[in-house]
Structure formats: structure tokens, C-alpha cells
């Protein structure tokens, strides 16, 4: 009687990058770049009711150096754009970006002199979450989609090669300088 534990001969095979991607996708430390009313919904997602921590995106980090995932929550205007870009550049690779809500994704209902028409005009974005503001379920779906992207990519967004496929050619050359 008694359980048979795996003996010393047992082993698990996997590819190294799959293991690394698996660990990356469940340890997304986020930097909340919250500028507008979507922030309320962001708080709801990370409050106890919806509990975004269940999906491995646990702790908000208020230093971009410690963050993996940049949440751009709310309207970004042209005066704010250099700051957002600098926050993104300060994050260490590998890093991912989620555009949270209509304003961050496309400028929303603003079409004027002051509003950036979507933060993908400034940064490479991985996941756009629709809604004004998005429901917490939509945000959790966005996080799951991002985790799928991280797992499915061969070596993560920048991974071992150091090449971020979301960057344009010019940005790539600039980062290599």
C-alpha cells in the first residue's frame, strides 16, 4: 500500500522557450498609466470582486523598471504623449502594452487638436480592449488573449533574439544604436 512517487528516473520534456513563456505569462506585473474615467473600471478589475490577480497579473508596480505590462487606461493627449513614450522606453524587455478602452485604442469620441488618435501612434500595442469603459470581463478576456500571445510566440515578443516584432524597422534600428 502507499503511493508510488515518481522515481528519480522520471523526467518531463519541454522546450525551454515554452517554459519561459509559460512563466512570463503568469507573472505580468503591470504599470497602470491611468489618465481618465476608465481608471474606475481598472480598479474594479483589480479589486476583490473580479480579482485580476487570478490571471497571474498580480501586482501594480508604480515604477516602469519593475513592470512587464503597460496598461494605458484612458485618453492620452499630445501633451502627455512624450511622458507615455518615456515610461514605455524605461520598461525592461520583455514588455507588453494593452490599450484599455476606446480612447486609448483609437482616441474614442475625440477628434480634435489635443487627443492622440490611438496610442498605437506612439507605442507598439499588443491588445486593444474595446468599450467605453470596458466591462471587467472584457479586460480579463484581454489579459487572457495577451497570455495566449505570449505563450504562442516562439520566443516571446523580444525573447532570445532581442527583436521585437511589433517594432517598426526604424524603431528597431534606433534601439540597436
Amino acid at each position, binding site marked *: 500500500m502507499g503511493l508510488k512517487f515518481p522515481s528519480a528516473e522520471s523526467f518531463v520534456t519541454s522546450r525551454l522557450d515554452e517554459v519561459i513563456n509559460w512563466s512570463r505569462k503568469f507573472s505580468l506585473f503591470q504599470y497602470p498609466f491611468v489618465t481618465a474615467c476608465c481608471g474606475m473600471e481598472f480598479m474594479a478589475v483589480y479589486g476583490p470582486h473580479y480579482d485580476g490577480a487570478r490571471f497571474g497579473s498580480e501586482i501594480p508596480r508604480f515604477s516602469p523598471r519593475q513592470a512587464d505590462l503597460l496598461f494605458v487606461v484612458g485618453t492620452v493627449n499630445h501633451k502627455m*504623449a512624450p511622458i507615455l513614450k518615456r515610461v514605455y522606453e524605461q520598461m525592461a524587455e520583455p514588455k507588453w502594452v494593452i490599450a484599455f478602452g476606446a480612447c486609448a485604442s483609437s482616441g474614442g469620441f475625440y*477628434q480634435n*487638436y489635443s487627443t492622440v*488618435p490611438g496610442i498605437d501612434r*506612439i507605442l507598439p500595442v499588443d491588445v486593444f480592449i474595446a468599450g467605453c469603459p470596458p466591462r471587467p470581463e472584457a479586460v480579463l478576456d484581454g489579459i487572457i488573449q495577451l497570455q495566449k500571445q505570449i505563450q504562442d510566440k516562439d520566443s516571446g515578443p523580444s525573447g532570445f533574439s532581442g527583436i521585437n516584432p511589433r517594432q517598426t524597422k526604424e524603431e528597431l534600428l534606433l534601439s540597436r544604436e
Partner: protein
Amino acid sequence: MPPLTALIKKDFPKLYLDSHAQHGDETVSIKRAGMLELFLFLKDDPRCKFDMMIDLTAVDYLPRSPRFEMVYHFKSSPLHHRLRVKIPLEESACQVDSIEPLWVAADWYERECWEMYGIDFQGHPNLKFLLRYEGFQGHPLRKDYDKLLMQPLVPMRPVAERHDYGEVFQYVQEPPPSVPEQEPS
């Protein structure tokens, strides 16, 4: 004639232009020259006692002449009455006297109005950018400012074809050269 309008018409006949009243709130249009005397009167006279500047802005009636109109809203907390003062302004001379020395609250309102409409507030102690950023050209709330013109501080990335209507925005990436280069003679 409503009491405040009558008072202004009697004491400042040279400034008075027009007036109307609705639901007990009075509106007076006045001329620009000598406006500070009227505002001082509104603030200090025991029949007015407007101790509170509620709002200050401009309106752009583009095809009309005079093109701009300054609008001031005042409230008197001891006497519980309100007054709206309007000052029509020509585009060629869009400048008024600052009322910041009388009501400190006017400070940021005048800065915003200066940025957005290009109206000069003479005598303002600190007329510098409040909402716009350095290098921004033009006055965005004027009717002849193109609503699709943006002046980004960081270069805009090209994006994937998610708009089927093409590029609608225009950008000012670099300020146009102010002085044309002269050829060496």
C-alpha cells in the same frame, strides 16, 4: 428697465451698448475703452457688490464683425444677484484689460482664454501657457483652426490598415521656418 442695467446706463452712458434680461438675470454689452472703471464700479459700489467672478470666456462668431465677444459672469454673494457683461471685440484689436487685479480668480481663466482664442489681456501678471504646450501654433478654439490639425510632440508611428477611410488627420511635425532663407548675393 431692470435695476442693474438702469444703473449702468445712467452712470456709464458712454460705455453702454446693449442689454437684455431673462428670468431676472441681466446682460449688458459695453465698449472696451474704459471697461476697468465699470468693473471697479461693479465690484465696489454698495448697490452692486459683485464680489465673485464666476466665469470669463470668449465666443468666436467667425463671419460676423466684430468677430469676438468677451463674456464675464459675476455674482454678488451679499446681495444675491447676478450680472453678465459682454464686450464685442474686432479681430484687428482683440485685446482687453485684465481684470486679474480686481478678481484674482480671473488669473487662470484669462490665461486659458488667451491660449484658446488669442485674446490679449493687457496688464495680466503671468500670461503664459496653461493648457497648450511649448511650440503649439495657433489658437485651437478659434473657428478657423482646422479641427483635424494636430501638432504632436512625438513623431506619429505608421499604423496597420485599421482605418478604411485613410489618413484623415494632418500633422504639424516641425514648425514652418519663419524667415525664408535668402540666397547669397
